[in-house]
Structure formats: C-alpha cells, structure tokens
C-alpha cells in the first residue's frame, strides 16, 4: 500500500506525521519511506538513515552538432518551452527552460541533436536503524525543476517491494505535489486549524478530487487557531483520523530532531490505528462507506 502525506500549506507537520507513521509501523511491516520534498527534504533529520548509495538525478538536454546543423529551425518550432533559439547562425540551448521531452532530438531532419544527461540533483538511498528502506531526492541549488527528481526517486523503488510505502510530499498543490500523490492509494492531509491551514487544505482537496484518491485528515496544533476544520470536511465526506494538540514539548522535541512517537510514545498505537482504518477503508468494495 502507498500512502502520501501532503498538506497544501507548508510547515503544518507533514514530515512529523510521515516519519512517525513509518516508525510506528516498521516493527510490524516492511516499510519504504520516500522523501519527495526535494526542494527542502527534512525526513532524514528525524529518521537518521545510513545512506549507502548516492546517484545523480538527471534530465536529458539537447546538444547541437554544429557540423551537421543546417540551422533549419525545426527544433525551435517543436520546443514547447522556448528552450532553443537561433542566435546569428547558431542554435542555442537554454538548459533552465528545457523539460527534457526529447522532441527537438527526435524531429531534427539532420540528426544533428544528441542528448546528454545533465545533473539537476541527487537520489540518496539507505536504511534506518528501525529497518525502514529510505530514499530521498534533493534538488541542486539554482535548478528550477523538482518533478523529474521525484519521478526518478519513485522509480528507484518498486511498489511491491514493501508492505507499506510512505511518500512525504512537498507543500503546495501544483506539479511537484501531483507527481508525488497521483499514484498513491491514500492521501493523508495534514492541516492546522487556522485560516491559512484551511485555505490550503481546500486546494489539496481539489487535487485529490482530480486524482480520485481516497483521503483523510490529521489536524495538527489543535487549540492554536480556533478555526474549525469539520464543516469543510463534511462537505467533502473526508474523515478526521487524528487530532494532535499544540504542546510546547512537541515543538521543542521536533526542533531537536526527535520523532513525535519518541516525544510522546502513546502516539505509536494511534498511528497503527490510523493505518488499520486506512487499510479497512481501502479493502471495502466500491460504493460502500
């Protein structure tokens, strides 16, 4: 089973939930953990894995063979991202705009374009002391595109390689979130009961409505904002699976790199319960709720 943890708003507690869920279930199930927040990956600070393999994450960039190029401009016509331009009697490539789709290479009548891999980040793989198979993507500084790294990270793991795969999503509700959650069996949405938390949760409800993925909500920092989440969720028929109160000792422990389940061990059984609820929900035949 594949569970994605997402939120819309940043800093609501995605990584706290994802890492605690993984640590709670690892003694019972084989667990894979993928940190898909490649712009700001933080799960390793809590799970403390031993990394045993680092590979470059790449996209394929076109390279023009000047000897063959007749400057016909076909490559410029087929590029949807304006990543190629004719400057004088040369074709120039703008690497930051290229999405690596391969159209220019394929369409060049002179076969004057080859593709060369360009590193835009890294994929790190390892294992935690609690036997969680761990993977994280990391976007290189000044590179704009996180999505290819997320796809490459996910391709490093097989879906049936574990009983449970946990995907720690980036914040927001656009391309990198879609790349993370689109093939999940269930999406756990973490929110906080503030106007900001609720507004961004709505965005994520829009995303899961489009992917058609069942979802549940965890309300974090209950007591801090006083904006009820229930009314919004009632309209969408999405359950609240857990409420975590705002407590200074949780904030302090997380800041020091501790798991929620280490700060307050009673949360272990709560995360196991959540997993069981999700499992039962997914087992039910369609149409019954």
């Amino acid at each position, binding site marked *: 089973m594949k569970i994605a943890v997402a939120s819309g*708003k940043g800093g609501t507690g995605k*990584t706290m939930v994802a890492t605690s869920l993984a640590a709670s279930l690892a003694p019972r199930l084989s667990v894979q953990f993928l940190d898909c927040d490649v*712009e700001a990956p933080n799960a390793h600070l809590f799970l403390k894995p031993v990394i045993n393999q680092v590979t470059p994450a790449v996209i394929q960039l076109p390279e023009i063979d000047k000897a063959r190029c007749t400057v016909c401009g076909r490559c410029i016509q087929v590029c949807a991202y304006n990543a190629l331009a004719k400057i004088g009697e040369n074709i120039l490539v703008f690497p930051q705009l290229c999405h690596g789709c391969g159209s220019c290479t394929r369409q060049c009548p002179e076969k004057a374009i080859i593709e060369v891999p360009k590193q835009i980040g890294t994929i790190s793989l390892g294992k935690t002391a609690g036997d969680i198979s761990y993977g994280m993507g990391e*976007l290189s500084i000044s590179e704009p595109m996180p999505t290819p790294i997320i796809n490459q990270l996910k391709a490093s793991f097989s879906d049936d390689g574990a009983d449970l795969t946990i995907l720690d999503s980036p914040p927001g509700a656009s391309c990198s979130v879609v790349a993370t959650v689109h093939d999940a069996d269930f999406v756990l949405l973490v929110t906080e009961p503030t106007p900001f938390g609720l507004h961004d949760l709505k965005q994520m409800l829009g995303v899961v409505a489009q992917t058609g993925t069942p979802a549940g909500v965890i309300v974090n920092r209950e007591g801090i904002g006083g904006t009820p989440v229930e009314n919004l969720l009632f309209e969408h028929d999405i359950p609240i699976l857990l409420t975590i109160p705002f407590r200074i000792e949780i904030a302090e422990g997380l800041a020091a790199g501790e798991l929620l389940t280490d700060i307050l061990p009673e949360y272990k059984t709560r995360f196991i319960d959540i997993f069981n609820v999700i499992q039962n929900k997914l087992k039910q035949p369609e149409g019954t709720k």
Partner: protein
Amino acid sequence: MIDKIPQVKQLVILSGKGGTGKTTLSAALMHLLSESPFEGVFVDADVDAANLALVTGAQILETHLFASSQSAFIDPGLCIACGICEQVCRFGAILPPITEQEVYQVKDLLCEGCAACVHTCPESAIEMVQQEDGEWYHSLTPYGHQFHAELFPAAENTGKLVTTIKQHAKLYAEDHHIPLMLVDGPPGIGCPVISASAGADLALLVAEPGVSGIHDLERIIKTLQHFRIPALICVNKADLYERGTQDIRVLAEAYGYPIVGEIPFDESIPHAMVQAQPVTLFKPHSKASIAIRRIWKNIRDALFTKGATDD
C-alpha cells in the same frame, strides 16, 4: 526625500522551509509600511497556497484568467492505437487502451504539454488544448495595492504566474511612483522561488529554530548567493528552541548575513490571523509586534539608506 525615486526597490520574503511565518511577517510589514512615509505595492508569490489576502482585507478590483499551459488530446475517432505516443511520452501521461474497443488517452494531470506525441502521431490524431491554470487579481487593501493569484488545484506553470503578477505589480508601482515592491515568496528553492526572487534588491529570510529550519535556511541562503541577492535574516519563534536559534546565529555569521531581529513565540500571531488582521495592527504592543517593528526599521535602513545594502 522620496520625491524622485529612480526605480522600484524589490524586497522578497523567503524561508526555504514552509510555515515559518513569511505571510504573517509580510502582512505586518505591509501595515507598518503604510504607516511610514514610504508607500508599497504588494505581491503574494505563493500562488498555490495564497494566503496573504486572508489577512490584508483585499478587495478585488480586477480578475484575470491565467491560461498558460497546454495539454494533449487524442481524437478517439482518428486514433488507430499504434502506441507511438506512449513510446515518445517521457512523462507517463499516455494511458494505453485496456480493451480492444478502446484507444489511447491522455492523463491530463501528468501531461507536461511538450507536444512530443502531436509531432510523432502518424494519423495526426492528437492536438494541443489550451488549459486554464488559474486566476490573478489586482486588489486594494488598506495598506496599498496588492497583486495575487490562485492557481487551480493541480495546475501547472507556477513560475510563469509569479512572473506575470510581479510584472503587473512593478508596472503599477512605476506608473504611480511607488518606491517599494514587497513580494511574499513561496517555500522551497525551485522554479516559483527563482521567479519570486528575480530582480530582487534584498531578501528577508524568515528562519525557524530547529533541525528542519536550519537545514532549509542553508539551502535558500545558497540559492540567493548563487543569484547574488543580498539577504537579511530574522528568526521566528526564536524562544521556542534557544539552542536552534543559537545555531542560526552561527550559520548567519558564517555566511556573513546579518540577523535583523528575533520574534518570540506569541499567541497574538495566530489570534491576529483568525481576526484576519496583520499582527502589528491587531496587537501593536505584543512581543511579536514590537520585534517586527524593529525588523521593519532595519529593512528600511538597508533598502533606503545609502551604503547600508550590498554588504
């Protein structure tokens, strides 16, 4: 002294990590700016989690459609199910038929709009269809004009949308001789952050003490160094984890970026958010408001006093 401003200065608020308080601080700075001799134009560049309007009482003056991306569409009447489109698509966006009666389909959510399938389909059965990605707004707040947007859920082109609203905000500022454009930035370090930071004269980084906060702070610092944008740092919830705040001071020192203020944990911040107000307006004498006023003074000096920037 502000009669003849040669250009619009650009201040961008960033953090790396999400949820450190960028929008709270942006709203408070808008309020403080409106009480100062300076005027500002405001941009919410976090277009897929756009929250600034929730605390600035923005009244929308103009709404514009943002239609930028394209998605492939396969005409089922023309498709002969040869499968070439699936072979050339590098984004996994082409779904093969399940039964013999069906043809190939495009999964819109995964389509990057590259049109590789359109160029290779032997039957010319595929065309690109314009998508509506979001809306952007020109609004009026009690503190000045605000440009913001709502990306539709799961839509694309965040960077382009950020660039679009910044362009309109800058034009407005130039036309009305407004000396400052304040940009509330998105989290992360990728495409929308790069768009939000383009052309910035100064960045204000909102850091949070703790292992995640400092890890992501270092990544945004390196990003700004790469683009040669000078930055100031402030620490939010600074007293929640004193050891982490000390770590941030050491990191800031190592990179040569000054810390211009430390905001203590203060419940007036979430309370102000619920009341839909900037914290400096809601509780002007709260611990947080006093700290933010000091930060604003430092930013003002850095932006408008000669010799205090680009250090």
